């Protein structure tokens, strides 16, 4: 079940599947998909069982069925590495796209997306610049790569950091949970791929944290 929030007057749905839906623009926003990461590991001699790509796509299908978006906007790190794109990953992705033919893909390239342009046509990806301004939002991959001018009224939405919170309570084992990090002027999405690290961030008082636990996004005021 999504949790609805409002930013600069725009409604956004935060999904526990680690994505954001922007109903007004019918846009499903994801970040850090890292397609083919498991494959890349296997190629390098690290044994990872199969099933991660399938589950990424199944998750995506689930979201698409729920939200019926017109487009998917990826805030960077579409793939992990081009070597990770085996025939298998490629064909599964194509197959998925074939079943969702009306969906547009807009991709802001992330630091992992080197040479993605060579594949963009194949997967019908529209590669954008490093920034995309769609008021009230300014989208990018790495939020630290930009200094927002004071005058701007745009709200920066990005990925890259894989934000997480640590739950610490006496007696319980420490546990990191992925989260949405919503500060006053910017927000960071959790990584869509579950096979990725989780990073604690320097949250500040006043930040809102959308903690993903079980099948819910629980909002905390920091």
């Amino acid at each position: 079940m999504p949790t609805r929030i409002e930013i600069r007057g725009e409604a956004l749905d935060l999904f526990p599947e680690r994505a954001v839906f922007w109903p007004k623009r019918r846009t499903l926003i994801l970040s850090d998909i890292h397609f083919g990461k498991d494959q890349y590991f296997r190629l390098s001699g690290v044994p990872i069982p199969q099933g991660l790509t399938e589950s990424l796509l199944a998750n995506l299908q689930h979201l698409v069925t729920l939200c019926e978006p017109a487009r998917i906007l990826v805030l960077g790190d579409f793939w992990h590495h081009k070597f990770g794109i085996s025939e298998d990953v490629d064909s599964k992705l194509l197959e998925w796209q074939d079943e969702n033919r009306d969906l547009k893909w807009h991709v802001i390239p992330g630091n992992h997306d080197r040479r993605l342009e060579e594949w963009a046509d194949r997967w019908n990806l529209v590669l954008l610049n490093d920034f995309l301004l769609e008021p009230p939002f300014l989208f990018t991959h790495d939020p630290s790569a930009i200094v927002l001018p004071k005058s701007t009224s745009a709200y920066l939405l990005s990925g890259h950091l894989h934000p997480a919170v640590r739950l610490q309570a006496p007696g319980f084992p420490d546990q990191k949970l992925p989260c949405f990090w919503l500060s006053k002027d910017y927000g960071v999405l959790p990584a869509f791929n579950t096979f990725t690290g989780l990073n604690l961030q320097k949250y500040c008082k006043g930040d809102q944290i959308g903690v993903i636990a079980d099948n819910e996004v629980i909002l905390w005021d920091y």
Partner: protein
Amino acid sequence: MTCSLPVPAQITDWFREQGWTPFAYQKASWQAFCEGKHGMIRADTGMGKTYAALMGPVVEHFREAENRKESENARGDLKGLKILWITPLRALAKDTEDAIRTVCEGLGLPWSIVLRTGDTKASVKQKLNYKLPEVLITTPESLSLLLSYPNRRPQVQNLKLVVVDEWHELIGTKRGVQTELGLSRLRQWAPDVRTWGISATIADLNSATMTLMGPQPAETSIETIEGPESPEIEIHSLIPETAERFPWAGHLGTQLVGQVADQIAQRNTSLVFTNTRSQAEQWYQHLLGERPEWAGQIAVHHGSLDPDVRRWVETQLAEGTLRAVVCTSSLDLGVDFPEVDQVFQVGSPKGVGRLIQRAGRSGHRPTASSRLVFVPTHAFELIELTAAKQAIEERLIEKRVAVKQPLDVLAQHVVTLACGDGYTQDELYAEITTTHAYQNLSREQWEWVLDFAHRGGSTLDAYPDYKRITETDGKWTIASRAMARRQRMSIGTISSDAMLRVKYMKGGYLGSVEESFLGRLKPNDPFVIAGKVVELVRIQDMTAYVKRSRRKRWNVPRWVGGKLPLSSELGNGVRREVGHISKGEGEAIQIDSLLPLLKLQDDWSIIPKQNELLVEQFKTRDGFFTVAFPFEGRAVHEGLAALWAYRLTRQQKATLGLIVNDYAVAMLSPEPIPRDRFKMEVLAGTQDLPQDIVECLNLSQMARQQFRDIARIAGLVFSGFPGRNKSSKQLQASSNLFFDVFQQYDPNNLLLQQARQEVLDQQLNWERLVTALQEIAGRTWRWVELDRPTPFSFPLVVERMRDRVSSEKLSERVKKMQAALEKKSPPPSISPNLRRNQNAYPY
């Protein structure tokens, strides 16, 4: 291989020149070796055990030289490695090398001797990749590494002797299994090799011997040789004038520091053993505070210090120039210090074997006895010591349980060997089943391991495009040179957390400390390391820069390592002792300062008899405590706690706090646990046990933690060189992630099963747990409700809560726990530089 005593004249002469006479057990060892036998020598440090094991091939060499002369068919000495000496401790390696060199030089043997450990110079290592010396001294890890290079067989085929030194340290560990595997390969290559182990006194020497030899050699070809009896142990105890009535486990108990200093002053050289590195640093500071004039005469020694510092301390100790050294298990074994004439044990000895071992570090002068002075840090330990004394008299030493076929170690081994000349499947299976650890390895398990290294799993669930080893014409070899390089970097079974080096700003290395401790410090925060008070300046590139501090208050790093559990043997001893007390008998009751505590316990509650299970329930500010006293040791208690909590919460949603120590299991709950319900679940014994264990939430959490080591050993997690090997960053993922991925996508992976099995066998001491459950069900039940904690319960009230079992959903907890959200994460003291390093890889 005929060789009869007497010992060749050269050797007797040389011994005489040194002013030594060979001990009978040494000669017996040489004789047995020359008869082609394998053997196990039981001898403590400082009894000439090195010579006992080493001289066999030397004797044989001279006998053969003699024969050659006689037959005038002078054939040259066979080339290649002759003696391989495996030691678990780097610190010991140098000493052994010196001893061997003395012999070889003294007897004019033209053998080259090389020491190869992780500390060895790169150029020496490089040379060893191509050519082996006649005598090699090395560690289990370096042995595996040696086997990972091609063309080894011709250099090893004339190997005569493998010595595994301090085998008691290796048995029951994965390092021990790694050693067994290495030996199995050597035995294939060198038909004439004889395996000799050296072990200190352990409970079951016979099974230790069998573990080292494996199932193959006939029993008649194995000789067990008893070294000289270790000296008598004299145990004294410092008794505090007043023992607090509420013993607080975990608090320092340094009130005896004055008495300890007095005793140190009366003798030449003392070792002060503590159970943790932090405690060592603290005791050092307190001793220095007590006797400032001892600066320079006392030192601290533990595993996290700079090797040079440690070596310096060891040298000074050997020369007898130090008055005292405060140390941890880092000095439990190893080099002999004849000057040491007194040993202190601060705090619980935890196990009988350990106490004997520590006591044995003193009194190596002829006719001297081992003098051990026990320093209790809280009142209970006085009872523990009485129990330990009794156990020493009865020689109730803990058994070492061999590790059962750990597949992670095997997975590492098959890849390691593939880096060398390779192997065929059947040949290696036959070889591996000659080890004790894998003698019952089934064909299926074997094939799974090979498949896992080859393609990730059996054909059906193979991992696409994954391969680490490949097969050509029936021969398995490594898939690529890059893979071989990586394998060599990750050989080993000891895991370590990320450690930061601690250095002075001006240069000078002090030691290393876990990142988790330093991460919490802010610049200018003082802490002690290597006996020096320093303050943090900054952290950069995995190094913490510090400067001297004059502050009087400081932190002590808490090095990970966990608390040693009290062994079951000692736990039972304590229960027996408490039982004696309840009847007004035994030794502990003679200790005056214990009396008030015991009296209070008896007035408020009861002192349980040996066949009784005492359960106390009382309310505190935090909630209701229900404390049971099985006296089975911490490891078993953790299992009991997890299991009982599971049974108590399965019917209604609840959260229970779990606290255990070596004597008791406590559960903390918002509402009192009803007596009858507790009784029913606790006394259920082993009924439904397998089912309960599987469903027990906490165990799966423990398995996840256990998987960290398994993932590393099996080669899933590649740590590489921190900060150096940038190309590997895209390949890093935490073992937690691996655990989740396997759990979800390959639940039948045998490594997951292994993790669960290890939790049961090692962490929870499964067999003991089952016996304990049955035995507890048979005890007489004594339930006492109180309005405050008793002296027996009090330590649990102040102990940090260990675990919590909750049948609530995570999301429910998250909602409740907003307050518990760590406010400053990550800690701001980490410099931006380090943060970048830490965080760089997952993006």
